[in-house]
Structure formats: C-alpha cells, structure tokens
C-alpha cells in the first residue's frame, strides 16, 4: 500500500449517531485531524408543516405550530398568535400578556439550563450535566403547576392566555426562583473559574463579528460576537416594553462567550420573572376572538431561546390560513456553523455543533479516501487498515523498558 500522507478523508457523521439527539447528516472532509470542508444535509426532520397548516383552521394551527419544536414550543405558538391577533385587530388583555411573557421567560430558563448541561456533557463534564438537569426539573415542576404539562404547555389562545395563576402558585414560584438563583451563581463560578472547563472551551469555534453579521446569524451565537441584537429590545412584543432588562453580550466570539451570554441571560430572566410575579395586573385573562380573520398579511417576530423566530402569515378571509411561513432560529445559524467548523479539530466538533461524538466505533466502517495528489478515489476496508497498523508497529520495533513480566 502506498504512502497515505497527504490524503483527505470523507467521513459521514449521522443521521443516527452516539450523541446526536436529532437526525442530521454531516459530511466532513478531513486532513489529519483538521476539518477542511463540511457539508450539511438537512431534510430528515422535514414534516411538511407549511402545507399542513393550509388545511387546518386557525385554532388547530396553534397546536400544529406548538409541535414544530419541543424545547421552544411556546415561542412558536406565541409568534403565531401574536401575528393572527394583529390580523384580527384584537387587543389582548394586560394580564394575558403578562402570563404569556412569564411562561416565555420560564421556557428560556429551562432551555438555557438544558443547553448548559449538554455543553458540559460534550466537554466531558458529566457532573455539570446532572446538576443542571436536576435544576431544570424545578422549572418543569413550575410549568406543570401552571399549565398541566411539562412540555407543550398550551397557554396561548387568541386574545390572551388560557389559564390563570393564583396566589399559592405565585408564592411557590418566588421561592423556587430564589433557589434557582443561588444554584446558577454556583454554575457561573464553575464556568468562569474552573481552569479545565475554561481551557476546553476558550478559542473553540471562533466566529468573527463581520462574518456573523453577513451570514445572518441569530441569538446567543450572534450576541457572543459582541453584536447587541435582541428582538425583545429592537421590536418589543407582549409585555417586554414594560419590563426592565438588558441585552447580554460577550466579546470573545467563541464557545466560552456563548456560555457566558446564556448564563447572563439566565440572571436577567430571573429578574424579569420576579418583576412580573410581583406586578401581575388584575383583570380577565382573555377576550373573545372572531371566527373569521380579515384578509391581510403580517410579519411576526419573537426572541426564542435560540435566536430570532419569524412567522409570516397571510390570510384570505376564510377560516384557514392562505400561507404560513416559519423560519426557526437554528436554520439561521447553519451557514455560521459551517464556517466555524472549517479549520477546527475533529475533537471540537461536539462543542461546536453541541451534538456530535467524534469517537466512531463500529466494525466494518467504509471510509472513502481521495488521493489529493492524483484525485482518484479508493475504498479501504477495515482489514486493510488493520494490516497496515500491524506492519507499522512491527517496523517501529518498540522495546519494553524495565518491564517486570515477560511479553
């Protein structure tokens, strides 16, 4: 077998893979340990929701949009309901808006705790994973008391919220938020001062400021490159124009910056939830909505935990929408992810993509080798690789130094 140096490898990763939570296929072109090129194949999760939405009426569409994503389900319903309320020219009640915003901030808290756990797991810090998910259960309990379900809490209806919060739940929520605040301060200390954790995350996945802007990145990925864009401040909706909060940024443009941005956002969310619970306006939680929606079109934007969520809704006067276009935040971050992966080491893939394990263990694995000098392709079987390894180690002639037992 001829010399294998200078060859690039095409390695497929996905759709089912050890640490992948969702099916996605990446083809990496590797040279040694460094990734030269990356290609993403989407479409495993394509469920045809936009076509389905044209066949269901407005209320059924609330439940359809809820199931676009499991982790940020409230963001999709709120975005949709906001848009349709503008078409109906319906003004939701103050108390309904506050309850909507409260559930939105609780969802942001649970999503960031989930992400922190996954980041810790990919960095090798499993204890962090277990701790943050244990605290996430506290938030899930709160959400279950308010809405009845741990995920897919259907709290939105045109005109306000569907369920109310009473004083007992309020008192319990305030206590739980105090507990979560103490624990998050502990996590901030770990994240900022634990040397191995910081060394693992710093400098990985760099996304310079200009590239982030031109590739239309969204959410904490954008804010970690020191660009203060947040839909809650730029284009306020629900109760955000009355809530005091700040946009959190970091200026290190790498994975450590993203961790810092998310932890800072956790603190802002705790502050906002406490403010809302203490100043919940009295009154009814929703108003009656009309069956038919007037003709028109509307663009509705929302800041989901992962970035900017945008819905475009067009109505033609009947009880079914004419067109619903959804752009979820992660799709906006794909071009930026591909740029971040180029030039990175294989071992940084999990951190950058937050889902992939580079340790591929399987028996007969098909690897396609492209000879970079001649351009011919050749497949190499496992048995060939094993023979080569045996020859290589025999040629090295390793001597056992001072070993007590015989070879």
């Amino acid at each position: 077998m001829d010399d294998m140096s200078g060859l690039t490898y095409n390695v497929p990763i996905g759709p089912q893979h050890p640490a992948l939570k969702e099916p996605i296929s990446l083809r990496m072109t590797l040279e040694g340990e460094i990734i030269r090129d990356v290609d993403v194949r989407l479409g495993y999760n394509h469920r045809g929701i936009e076509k389905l939405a044209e066949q269901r009426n407005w209320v059924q569409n609330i439940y359809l949009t809820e199931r676009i994503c499991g982790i940020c389900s409230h963001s999709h319903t709120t975005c949709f309901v906001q848009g349709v309320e503008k078409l109906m020219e319906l003004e939701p009640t103050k108390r309904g808006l506050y309850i909507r915003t409260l559930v939105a901030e609780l969802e942001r808290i649970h999503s960031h705790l989930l992400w922190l756990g996954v980041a810790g797991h990919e960095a090798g810090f499993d204890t962090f994973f277990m701790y943050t998910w244990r605290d996430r259960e506290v938030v899930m309990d709160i959400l279950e008391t308010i809405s009845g379900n741990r995920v897919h809490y259907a709290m939105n209806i045109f005109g306000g919220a569907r369920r109310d919060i009473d004083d007992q739940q309020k008192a319990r929520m305030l206590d739980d938020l105090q507990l979560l605040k103490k624990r998050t301060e502990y996590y901030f200390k770990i994240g900022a001062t634990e040397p191995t954790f910081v060394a693992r995350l710093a400098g990985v996945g760099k996304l310079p400021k200009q590239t982030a802007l031109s590739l239309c990145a969204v959410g904490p990925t954008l804010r970690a490159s020191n660009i203060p864009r947040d839909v809650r401040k730029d284009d306020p909706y629900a109760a955000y124009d009355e809530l005091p909060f700040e946009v959190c940024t970091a200026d290190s443009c790498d994975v450590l910056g993203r961790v810092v941005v998310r932890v800072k956002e956790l603190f802002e969310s705790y502050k906002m939830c406490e403010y809302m619970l203490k100043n919940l306006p009295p009154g009814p939680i929703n108003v009656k909505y009309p069956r038919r929606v007037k003709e028109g079109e509307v663009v509705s934007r929302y800041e989901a935990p992962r970035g900017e969520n945008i819905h475009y809704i067009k109505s033609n006067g009947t009880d079914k929408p004419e067109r619903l276009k959804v752009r979820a935040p992660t799709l906006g971050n794909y071009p930026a992810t591909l740029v971040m992966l180029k030039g990175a080491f294989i071992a940084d893939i999990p951190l950058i993509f937050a889902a992939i394990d580079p340790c591929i263990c399987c028996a007969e694995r098909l690897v396609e080798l492209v000879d970079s000098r001649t351009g011919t392709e050749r497949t190499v079987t496992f048995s060939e690789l094993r023979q080569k390894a045996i020859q290589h180690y025999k040629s090295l002639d390793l001597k056992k130094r001072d070993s007590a037992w015989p070879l």
Partner: protein
Amino acid sequence: MNDEKIISRIKEQFQDKTAEVTNPAPRRIFVKVDRPDLLAVTRFLRDTFNFVHVSTISGVDKGEVFEILYHLANESCSLTVRITTPRNEPKVPSICEVIPGAVLYERELQDMFGLVIENIPDPRPLLLPDDWPKGQYPLRKDWIFERPEEKIPGGG
C-alpha cells in the same frame, strides 16, 4: 431611525421604480419592486440603513404569479421587499452577492416552488428527500397529496 425617514428616503431614491410602500404597523414596512430592480434596492437598503440581516424569504402561490417576499431587519425596523414573477417563467435573481446568508432560504424556495434562482452559489435541494420525484413542488396550490392506505399491523 424611524419608519417615516426610511420611507421618505426610499421614495426619493427610487421614485418611479417602487410601486407601493405601506406602513401598516409600527416597525413594519412593505415595499413592492419590479423583478429587475431587486438587487439595486437591496444594495441601497444594506448600505444606507444597515439592513444586513435577512430573516427569511417566503414564497406565496397566487395562481397566475408567484409572489416572493424578502424579510430584512435592522436594529429598529423590519422591512419586507416584495417581487412577483409569472408562473410560466419563474426566474428570480439571487441576492447572495448582497447578503451571503440568504443562500439557504433561496435553496428552499427552489425546492418547494420550483423557482429558478439565477447565480445562486449552491443550487442543490435543501429539504426534500433524496428519492423525491422531479417536477413535484409541494407548496404550489395545485399540488394535492393523496395519503396512501395505511396497513395496521395485526389488524384487518
């Protein structure tokens, strides 16, 4: 900057080329342009008002024409540029040279509606499966899907 300033600058720059500019709600502007002027308008918006961010690109099937909306955003406003293209000649110029991040959304338009986007840097299909038959564009209004009969395991 507020909406009126943006609208007045657009009107004075492209007097006759923009057919209608509406402002239905605060921070929402809708501009209609003709197909050949799309690149010039987006370049002007990017350079003057900092509309560097494309939120998404939607397509609507209106029967005789396809309407394509480019949703742009900056720090204070969300502006939508609208163009139409006839159904029997669905060609649209690509805005990737102005804003490179729009390539995924244009690929999706090609997949779902069968539009042809000129000068797109990456023309592969984005969302539909590998064994999808050619010529079938799901989001067109005349494409109806008949669900095949399901077989129930262990049942009749």
